[in-house]
């Protein structure tokens, strides 16, 4: 039996995440992989704005907290200055796919040699559950009280699909964290992304489908079912680009 213990990159303080929130699991996976790769001291977490910013309360490794949507820009400055560091940005969907769309697409297009971990829970959790660019059609939020209507708000943005159209990124993949199988695959995907970065291969992007029990107004278990029936059919998990394989 594998021993289950606290990652040394998670500080000994409450996470701040709501009960049942998969953000905790996502950060746990990232910290586990960094530890496994022996990169604890060498890693640098670029923390964005939204629920992802709760990382500043309990991330135990080096981190830089940055402005909303700007993590890929700040990570560019970091990595260009200190290419030896394992640099990753941890961003939510409002941060990455709305206010930070320009920064993520441009950093990916330049092939910046860092990793973006994208937690997609289809809502602005920190501000109380407004519509995100990834909110599903029909999904109710505080700014789409009758459900998201594509006639006025368009359609949920598929970031893996968009980024994989670019030449430079070397690994683009999406995983769902609502099942043990998905968690295992996500862990392997994060590890692959970090390994490619350490080999200097270029831009890597890992999207993690997560939940928001508080703002979806569901129990944690209900959110996992909702993901199966609604989220996953639209945001299909899989590897969208892998230049090592695609060659």
């Amino acid at each position, binding site marked *: 039996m594998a021993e289950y213990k606290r990652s040394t990159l998670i500080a000994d303080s409450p996470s701040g995440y709501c009960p049942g929130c998969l953000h905790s699991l996502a950060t746990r996976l990232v910290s586990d992989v960094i530890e496994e790769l022996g990169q604890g*001291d*060498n890693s*640098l977490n*670029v*923390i964005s704005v939204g629920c992802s*910013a709760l990382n*500043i309360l309990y*991330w*135990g*490794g*080096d*981190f*830089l*907290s*940055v*402005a909303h949507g*700007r993590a890929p*820009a*700040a*990570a*560019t*400055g*970091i*990595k*260009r*200055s*200190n290419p030896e*560091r394992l640099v990753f940005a941890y961003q939510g969907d409002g941060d990455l796919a709305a206010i930070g769309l*320009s*920064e993520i*697409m*441009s950093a990916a297009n*330049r092939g910046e040699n860092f990793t973006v971990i994208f937690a997609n829970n289809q809502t602005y959790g920190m501000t109380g559950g407004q519509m995100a660019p990834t909110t599903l059609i029909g999904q109710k939020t505080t700014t789409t009280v009758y459900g998201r209507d594509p006639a006025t708000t368009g359609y949920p943005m598929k970031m893996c699909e968009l980024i994989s159209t670019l030449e430079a990124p070397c690994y683009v993949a999406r995983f769902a964290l609502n099942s043990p199988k998905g968690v295992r695959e996500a862990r392997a995907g994060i590890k692959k992304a970090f390994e490619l970065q350490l080999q200097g291969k270029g831009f890597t992007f890992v999207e993690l489908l997560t939940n928001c029990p508080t703002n979806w107004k569901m129990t944690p278990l209900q959110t996992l079912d909702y993901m199966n029936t609604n989220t996953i059919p639209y945001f299909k998990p899989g590897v969208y680009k892998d230049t090592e394989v695609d060659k």
Partner: protein
Amino acid sequence: MGEKKFMKGNEAIAEAAVRGGCRFFAGYPITPQNEIPEYLSWRLPEVGGSYVQGESEIASVNMVYGAAAMGTRAMTSSSGPGISLKAEGISYLAAAMLPALIVNISRGGPGLGSIQPAQSDYLQATKALGHGGFHAMVFAPNSAQEAVDIVYDAWEYAERDRNPVLVLMDGCLGNIMEEVELPPMKELKDEDLPEWSLSRRNGRDYQGNITPIYTELILEGLNAAAGEMYKAWEEDDVKVEEFMTEDAEYVVVAYGIASRVAKEAIINLREQGFKVGMIRPITLFPFPKANIKNLDYSRVKGIIDIEMTIPAQMREDIELQVLGRCPVYEYGRSGGVLLDDEGVYEAIYEIVSGGEIDG
């Protein structure tokens, strides 16, 4: 002796930055500052630095934020509309206490304005470079040489204060060709990287973090500390040139390109017997309050604010020191129309000849 070269103002700034230790630049094209990124795009890689053409002004200043957090001497440059876009990032630099150099080669405003030179960004530079009530030191050189000297030492101030520094010039000074004496290359060592830096090249072996987010009481304390820092700048860091003020009955206040045009006019007016002098702020923030406040107002009959913008933006800072002890006049051109010798001479002449020293 340093190396002498005939250089454009913008290129001189770029070379001075490299010699002052700058190893990271990110920026976005905008006239009239394009020679700065163009020069640094090939020059920085020569010295092991990095240049990024950002996808926007917003991204560029946030790239600088990232590089600065590693202790790397980093800068960005732009002109008025682009500085507005950078406002968010500059505020974050101040919040996270990160040193960086911002250069504004200003042009006509507001809005897109004109691409021709103007001094239209004084208020933005000195009062609110971004939200949240912070200040940066603002330097306003009036020659390529003075720009070189200021930019060369900009990070000494920025790192001392852990705060961004702004150099404000206009499109004239950015594009003027002048002889400059270039200082030697500063050699910066990894072990000298500041302790707060997130780089581990200085041997740091414990967790480090930098954040612009604070709890209420800590933020209040940092606000108060910043207030103390601004007061200390006023005591220690004011840079100002006084020209023929000893016996002046009229004192021009002008900075940057306006001060050069005004100086010519003052020399000509002196030949006509008019006792005119000039106070030239080199730092716009901290403003040289004492120089204006302590003038002998039993002799001084008027202060003339000359700026290449309409309405004058420095006037309130001047009036707060004059406190009604003599009239304050203003003259300027705006919108990208340049101040010229005749216009400035005639404007000052009209004021001084209409007064008691007529004849």
